[in-house]
């Protein structure tokens, strides 16, 4: 009898949900974006939905960098068999933890009538809640029903209600609806714009680097994110949350290409100081100092190029040759004026990532600075280039500068090298692992550089050059827009982030102002026409031309 009642209850729940969904599915919106969750987004989402003590262990498929950002590749990558196998195992291990005896009291909101038998009402409650959180929209009736049935079958096979929940939950996390952020658009008078849930998702993954919380989803469902006032209220709430730091860490980590460290090898014979702890330390230094300026100090983002303030830990202190007098892991530190260090381009991270294993590379450094901070990617060099003269350290050309200058006299090379090399040459005062040096092969290093009509000298001069270069803040705004929308930064129209950029300038280049200006501008949620429609439109055009 009891069983029949609970089944009836579940059926009722499912029916109610299906009615609500009927309206939704009748007018399904075209999908304009499908973005595979990045590793960080996956980890943050799981932590926010289930709690930080749920371990996420496994391999994530690599991404590729496009238009200066890895996140952009989330728009074109799929899931390979190896990747799915890993997602599958991860999902299972997370679901086991969520439903184990330690966590079920907190994470499973209802109790089954009999822990050894199916309880569809309790299962429906469980899957409705986590389905909403994981799919970033409510489950449709048939979707809910499929999980309730799966849980029920599994409970019967294993004689354990919680095991049923475990399998149903694992399934939710293997679904493309979780692994991909689906962005759907609705038609407006002037084009297409994201629907409520897609807005909430785009907003949350940009600002928090994670899944929207219950409140944001509720507001999205009510349609409040479509009004300027409703949107602003939520943006301010997201902005005030400590989670903002996670979002901005994800952005800067991507923009500053800090993943490069995952595969940097340094020559231990030439540079024994480069130990295993160095790469993660250097990465953390850069993130810490950037976040400190951008969020904690609410500083002028142009100062990122000139500030002598940073954070060091014990291993970095050794490399920077400064005393480490601190009990904790990280110590705030300000380099002295004559240290040669100023701004992010003179940090160990930037200097070592863009170098060879045992030798600095002005070209690599120059190309990286142009690409990362000025949004000016350098074309691939022509296939047939003879570099031999610049590598003969025993010949007449003693320093890298002399060797580079020799080949930059060739017209084909010069067109690119004249752009990037001066930047890299001004950083030659630092070796491949970022230690300061004054000579190379016993010859004093000339750190002067000239770009266009601007003359400068060394890392400090380069920092000032970048600080004063309007291309840098514009590039930062462009990359933030690309990171948020998934559009390749090279294809981003300047007009789409114009108003955000204006807020950025008006605020004195504060990151928060840029972010707020960006997400509150209608352009942030507007999208081009869906692909099918575009091609249909083109066909019509063609047909009419034929006529």
């Amino acid at each position, binding site marked *: 009898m009891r069983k029949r009642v609970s089944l009836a209850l579940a059926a009722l729940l499912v029916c109610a949900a299906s009615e609500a969904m009927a309206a939704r599915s009748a007018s399904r919106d075209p*999908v304009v974006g499908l973005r595979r969750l990045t590793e960080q987004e996956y980890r943050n989402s799981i932590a926010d939905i289930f709690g930080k003590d749920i371990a996420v262990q496994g391999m994530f498929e690599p991404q590729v960098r496009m238009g200066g950002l890895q996140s952009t590749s989330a728009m074109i990558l799929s*899931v390979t068999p190896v990747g799915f*196998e890993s997602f599958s195992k991860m999902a299972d291990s997370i679901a086991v933890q969520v439903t184990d005896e330690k966590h079920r009291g907190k994470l499973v909101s209802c109790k089954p009538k009999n822990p050894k038998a199916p309880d569809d009402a309790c299962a429906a409650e469980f899957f409705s809640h986590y389905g909403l959180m994981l799919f970033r929209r409510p489950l449709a009736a048939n979707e809910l029903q499929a999980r309730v049935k799966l849980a029920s079958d599994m409970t019967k096979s294993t004689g354990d209600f919680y095991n049923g929940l475990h399998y149903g939950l694992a399934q939710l996390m293997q*679904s493309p609806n979780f692994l991909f952020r689906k962005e759907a658009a609705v038609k407006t008078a002037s084009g297409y714009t994201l629907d409520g849930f897609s807005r909430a998702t785009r907003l949350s993954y940009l600002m928090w680097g994670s899944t929207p919380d219950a409140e944001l989803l509720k507001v999205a469902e009510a349609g409040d994110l479509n009004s300027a006032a409703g949107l602003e209220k939520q943006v301010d709430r997201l902005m005030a949350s400590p989670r903002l730091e996670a979002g901005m860490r994800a952005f800067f980590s991507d923009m500053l290409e800090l993943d490069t460290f995952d595969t940097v090898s340094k020559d231990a014979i030439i540079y024994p100081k480069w130990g295993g702890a160095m790469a993660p330390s250097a990465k953390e230094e850069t993130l810490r100092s950037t976040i400190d300026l951008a969020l904690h100090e609410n500083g002028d983002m142009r100062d990122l190029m000139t500030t002598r303030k940073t954070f060091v830990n014990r291993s970095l202190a050794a490399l920077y040759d400064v005393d480490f007098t601190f009990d904790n892991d990280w110590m705030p530190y300000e380099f002295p004026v004559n240290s040669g260090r100023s701004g992010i381009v003179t940090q160990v991270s930037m200097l070592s990532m863009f170098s060879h294993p045992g030798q600095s590379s002005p070209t690599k450094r120059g190309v990286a600075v142009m690409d990362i901070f000025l949004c000016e990617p350098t074309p691939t060099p022509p296939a047939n280039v003879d570099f031999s003269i610049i590598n003969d350290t025993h010949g007449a050309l003693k320093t890298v500068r002399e060797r580079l200058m020799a080949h930059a006299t060739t017209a084909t090379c010069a067109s690119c090298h004249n752009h990037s090399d001066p930047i890299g040459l001004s950083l030659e005062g630092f070796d491949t692992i970022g230690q300061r040096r004054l000579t190379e092969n016993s010859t004093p290093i000339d750190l002067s550089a000239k770009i266009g009509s601007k003359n400068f000298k060394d890392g400090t001069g380069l920092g000032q050059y970048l600080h004063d270069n309007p291309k840098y803040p514009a590039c930062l705004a462009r990359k933030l827009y690309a990171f948020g929308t998934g559009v390749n930064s090279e294809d981003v129209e300047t007009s789409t982030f114009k108003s955000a950029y204006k807020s950025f300038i008006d605020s004195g280049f504060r990151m928060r102002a840029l972010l707020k200006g960006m997400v509150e501008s209608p352009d942030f949620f507007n999208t081009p026409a869906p692909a099918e429609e575009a091609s249909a439109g083109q066909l019509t055009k063609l047909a009419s031309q034929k006529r």
Partner: protein
Amino acid sequence: MDRRKLLRGMFQGSAAVVGVPFLDCFLDSKGQALAATGQRLPTRFSTFFFGLGLTTKLWVPQKTGLDYDTTIQLKPLEAFKKKMNVFSGMRVMVDDNPNFQHWSGNAAIVTGIAPTKNAQFDSKTIDQTIADVISRGSRFKTVAAAASGDPKHCYSSLGGANTLPAEPTPMSLYKRLFGPGFQDPSRGDWKPDPQVMLQQSVLSVVSDERKDFMKDLGPADKARMEQYFTSVRESELQIAAELQRPEIVAKVTIPADPGEMVVNYALPNVRVATPLMAKLGALAMATDQTRVFNLAISEPGSNIFVPGDPLGYHITTHMEAIDLTLGYQPKVAEYNIYSMELLASMLKELDAIPEGDGTLLDHSLTMAYSDQSYAKIHAVDGIPIFLAGNASGRMKTGFHIAGGGAPVSRVGLTVQKAMGLGVDGWGKGSMETKSLYTELLA
């Protein structure tokens, strides 16, 4: 006592033998090798990728056909001369597409198509095409490993920008193959794991979402999601395979977990990781965990370096001067030899596993290839390609084939034929070919 524990325990001290040794009575009337269960051994396929090619002057033999001369750079492979074929002078025709540096060459070899986009494949790669046919019933459709530690170093793809991630360390490769889920075929009390059966039901619900999920997608996203649901399907097949008692029982030793080690571009580390990974791959093929194994020692444009060399392999190919007396780049030539030594170390592992009338190498085909022929100028004509193993008797070996400008796709087509695929032609544009190296096919 648990037999697997016993085996592991024994290995701490010495070796253990898994399975029953092959005996002549396991050979069928044609002398074909059979597994202990009487099942014919499948022909397995592997690839070996090495970046930056070789030095033409030092590797291309003068003579063609059988009994060609062993050149300086082929010297490390001498032990396998009779068991392999060498292809020189094969062309990559890019047609109207750019020659993407360190990409067009290797992509063309594995797809028969000059890539239209950098770092993307214009079709499924050859190992996947072969796996579609030969891998049914084995646990993993394909397995890949990257000996300098970057999971991106894998040139196996279902098409597009996605490549199947490689296992970046011997330990991760070991865990994938012989960790949880590994079914020791020789266990007397073998029975299907009930947990695995339950996973099947979970996956079928994922598959059921396909129709609904695809509904509102544009064409590009539809293609991406086809790959996703293919991956789901492969997981289902993997589970189905795990529920079957493996039929192939080999005379091999499953070693202990190799443990943590530094895996990066430093040559001494690559020299440790390569044979270790090759061994694990070989064991995986011998025990039918997979029938397709891809090993890359680096990316195209290899960043491998010899400690003490400040520039490393790739930059050296561009920056080192040609020695006017020698007529080549001496340091680059040394790096080339390291690649051949590493290839030899893989072949050695395949050849070390006895199977019926021969070794695993004899019952498989390994395609070794690179991204450039002359890396200094990013040339793609004459990229070295080697085929080792005689594919269970279907490929004759010991030849040097001078391609004379024939498209690289001829090698790929011949490989597929030798692997038993019913293909008539392969490749696109100028590289579309129906021309097999019939002289190599038995």
